């Protein structure tokens, strides 16, 4: 058999012989003039290969596709979300810790209490998140002592964003949301290790966040009850853990809300995690005129 390659790509008929004509696509324009071998060949040590356009090699197409997907995929292997609604701010997260392809723990606590009225979520490097949230808690306490008033969520998130910005490019991996309650009511900020800081009403961070956003966006209403908000948060985390390999374990959520005018005449700021109340703070002045129903214990786990 004779293979005929034609630059002009027309089919050549040849009566006498049985020839098989294959039209070969002309790749010569994409080839570099420098040798294709890299550093492995000693002969070409003195020469540097000029960059050439990489064509997916058909024998290795899966790897090429994987690399292309990895490039687009957000890097932090977790799913966390938070949103503000009528009653307060709901914070939820999964509980899986993964090291590459190995699941190192299914019961990691990814919602960190910075101080009694502010929560942070952990996405990215666990050590980075824990350390810097602890550090932020210290700075918030110092602010309270120096100024005789609690720091606002805006201020706390700005402190953290400035710290992370100064370490920009040094390999910190932090994708966190600062959620809390201050004099202006509920506050939610997204802060990341590139130095970005965004104020918003709902965020989701991590590799499972696109999945969680879908469920969260379609089910979100500002005037939800606490039960509806807990259910929405739980479902969003659940669907994200179903589809995303790096998220899983248990969906847990923390709710930060206010109990008004209790029988003893006081109002309380409460933070609950599942069946457990993390803290209850007595409030001396009313913070806003919005009211919320009596405390409900909520438990959500997969």
């Amino acid at each position, binding site marked *: 058999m004779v293979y005929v390659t034609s630059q002009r790509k027309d089919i050549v008929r040849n009566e006498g012989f049985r020839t098989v004509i294959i039209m070969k696509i002309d790749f010569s324009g994409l080839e570099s003039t420098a040798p294709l071998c890299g550093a492995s060949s000693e002969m070409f040590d003195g020469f540097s290969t000029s960059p050439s356009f990489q064509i997916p090699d058909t024998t290795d197409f899966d790897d090429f596709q994987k690399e292309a997907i990895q490039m687009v995929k957000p890097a932090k292997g977790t799913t966390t979300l938070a949103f*503000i609604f*009528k009653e307060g701010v709901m914070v939820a997260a999964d509980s899986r810790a993964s090291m590459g392809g190995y699941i190192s723990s299914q019961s990691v606590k990814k919602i960190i209490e910075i101080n009694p009225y502010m929560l942070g979520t952990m996405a990215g490097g666990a050590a980075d998140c824990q350390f810097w949230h602890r550090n932020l808690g210290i700075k918030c306490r110092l602010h309270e002592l120096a100024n005789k008033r609690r720091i606002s969520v805006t201020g706390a998130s700005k402190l953290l964003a400035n710290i992370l910005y100064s370490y920009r490019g040094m390999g910190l991996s932090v994708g966190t949301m600062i959620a809390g309650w201050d004099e202006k009511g509920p506050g939610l900020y997204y802060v990341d290790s*590139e*130095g*970005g*800081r965004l104020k*918003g009403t*709902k965020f989701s961070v991590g590799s499972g966040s696109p999945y969680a956003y879908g469920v969260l966006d379609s089910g979100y209403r500002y005037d939800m009850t606490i039960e509806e908000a807990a259910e929405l948060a739980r479902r969003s985390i659940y669907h994200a853990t179903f589809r995303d390999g790096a998220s899983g374990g248990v969906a847990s959520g923390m709710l930060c809300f206010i109990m008004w005018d209790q029988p003893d005449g006081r109002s309380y700021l409460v933070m609950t995690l599942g069946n457990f109340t993390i803290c209850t703070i007595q409030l001396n002045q009313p913070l806003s005129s919005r009211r919320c129903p009596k405390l409900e214990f909520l438990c959500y786990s997969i």
Partner: protein
Amino acid sequence: MECVFGMVGKEFAVVVADSSAVHSILVHKSNEDKIMLLDSHKLMGASGEPGDRAQFTEYVQKNVALYHFRNGIPLTTAASANFTRGELATALRKNPYSVNIVLAGYDKGSGPSLYFIDYIATLHKVDKAAFGYGSYFSLAMMDRHYRKDMSVEEAIELVDKCIIEIRSRLVVAPPNFVIKIVDKDGAREYAWRESVKDAPSVA
């Protein structure tokens, strides 16, 4: 994906920026304000890496305010543009900021002015400027339809034409834009052009 552009009209200057905060393929929010008021008569629209953008524009804003406090008179637009460029240039060889800036201002003596400041500290005083993928579309539109001394209505018409073009032709077009204007009465927000509404922050 981030589009910032601006132009000078008759006794005013307008700056337009998209308002989506994006991380890889995810849009975190679509109502992020990327045009900062430097002082009462200056606007700075910035695009680039989110951390750099917020931090650098705030740094310039605070330094402009500091000059005003120290010396009792505000900086001119030209002076603040040159200060911005100087800061970018000093940091360029050590720890560069990746922010592209369109700075617009109104001075009592010289009227409106617009400055194009690149991330590698290029500075040009221009009549129309644009950054980002949107610049491919908005620059051509502005070149075609821009005239000196346009009125506010004509300029906003041209801005809307650019926004429509960006929305229809750019593959990852941002849905919402914010328009801010500066004239002798000061710098202020003029309008939003929204095609996707984010959830309101208060009921």
